[in-house]
């Protein structure tokens, strides 16, 4: 009799626990859903509103100039800016990251790390104004170079911080393994640590590139804008998709708004095209 009572008690207790567990799972699930709904909303509305104009204008939309109803120069501009910014920012960023990894306790190392963290959160519009002050005004015109340098400044902290963190994650034993074979400091960092931190560093580069390819603010005072011809000279003004969207949205004309949506869709596609394949390729890397 007593045993059965205990049994009943035990079952009730178990049931309460299961109910609690289910409620918890439901709560977590629905909250997650609420968080990602806006993301889906953005993607869906961009596709819904952007797709018709792209279909309507066809290849012209992708390759044509603005007056033909296309955003070709803007796409080229974005690619050019991103490429140049990466070219300029990457080596510096990588070295800065490697430095703050190797000398975490030195004054310069600590300062570098702190500055990078600050730069990560730096208002991007200020970067634009800064570059305008030191480059655009002396040179007398907007230019792709100025835009790229502004973007490079934004890219740098991402790559640096990710590089530093990815390197710091490599177990100490690999570093020592390098030294034990007679490597110098530089050889250990560039031949051992960099290779092993490849995944993290590449993630940083990708995030940095994705970030700068979508930036508007730093380009406002630096890149200028160029939508009727393709950019050829990095010292000339250049357009960019986000900049174009910004300009078009301010225009009162409905057609301009439509093109803006199309441009947004193109940007989304570029972003995903950049991100997904490399992300996927990196997945096969053996995790440490």
């Amino acid at each position, binding site marked *: 009799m007593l045993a059965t009572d205990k049994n009943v008690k035990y079952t009730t207790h178990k049931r309460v626990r299961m109910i609690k567990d289910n409620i918890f799972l439901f709560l977590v699930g629905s909250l997650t859903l609420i968080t990602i709904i806006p993301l889906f909303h953005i993607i869906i509305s961009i596709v819904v509103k952007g797709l018709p104009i792209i279909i309507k204008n066809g290849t012209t939309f992708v390759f044509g100039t603005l007056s033909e109803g296309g955003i070709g120069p803007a796409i080229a501009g974005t690619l050019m800016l991103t490429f140049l910014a990466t070219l300029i920012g990457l080596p510096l960023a990588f070295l800065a990251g490697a430095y703050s990894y190797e000398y975490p306790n030195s004054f310069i190392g600590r300062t570098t790390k702190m500055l990078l963290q600050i730069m990560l959160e730096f208002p991007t519009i200020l970067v634009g104004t800064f570059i305008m002050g030191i480059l655009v005004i002396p040179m007398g015109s907007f230019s792709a170079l100025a835009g790229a340098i502004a973007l490079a400044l934004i890219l740098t902290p991402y790559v640096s911080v990710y590089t530093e963190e990815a390197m710091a994650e490599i177990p100490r*034993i690999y570093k020592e393994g390098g030294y034990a*074979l007679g490597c110098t400091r530089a050889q250990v960092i560039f031949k051992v640590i960099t290779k092993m931190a490849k995944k993290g560093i590449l993630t940083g580069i990708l995030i940095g590139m994705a970030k700068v390819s979508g930036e508007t603010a730093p380009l406002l005072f630096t890149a200028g804008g160029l939508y009727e011809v393709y950019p050829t000279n990095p010292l000339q003004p250049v357009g960019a998709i986000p900049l174009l969207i910004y300009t078009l949205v301010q225009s009162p004309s409905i057609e301009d708004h439509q093109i803006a949506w199309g441009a947004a869709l193109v940007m989304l596609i570029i972003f995903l095209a950049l991100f997904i394949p490399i992300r996927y390729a990196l997945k096969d890397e053996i995790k440490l």
Partner: protein
Amino acid sequence: MESIKMETNNLNLWYGDKQALYDINLPVYKNKITALIGPSGCGKSTFLRCLNRLNDLITTVKIDGNVMLDGRNIYDEDVDVYDLRKRVGMVFQKPNPFAMSIYDNITFGPKIHGIKNKTELDKIVKWALKKAALWDEVKDELNKNALSLSGGQQQRLCIARTIAVKPEVILMDEPTSALDPISTLKIEDLMAELAKDYTIVVVTHNMQQASRISDYTGFFLMGKLIEFDKTEKIFLEPAHKETEDYISGRFG
């Protein structure tokens, strides 16, 4: 008959203000296996890292005393530490092959030290893998990522990588503590084989391992070298009570 390859004279070491090693005088005989045993935190690994100056990497470490390699103090100012580490190689507690192919792991050291010739590198790879008793297991998949090997194979690869730079002394820091018993015995056999050509110093938590493979044993306790002698002497008739207590498991 038995010549001294390395020797420490009154070696003291501090981590910051805390002294970790006290007046260590320990000879390392050529082509012999010297085992260092003792409870955790007794300083045996720290001591091992003094022998190839790996402690240099820790900025708070201060060292006093001599470590002689073939009669020269390795802490002298004019010693090239990178060359020293080439002569005194090291195998670590956990297998640490680099995330690259087996081939690249072995050639990594030789390349660093300036060997570029492909045929020569091929030769070194084959030689080192054979020496480490790994050749037969991996000869058909030298381009496979080293991290896909089993733990025991990885550790033998690390040994191969170490001997590929042709060191004179091999330091081993608990080389089998992360391995299963069979892999452990394989490594032990390998060490006995390697001792014919190299001088080996091995730190081990496993007293039985020390007894099985070593020719000389040093017992560390609280940063002091309590006893150093032939392994048989240490395990059959230790001179110090602390040593006896430790090896017979009556410690603490």
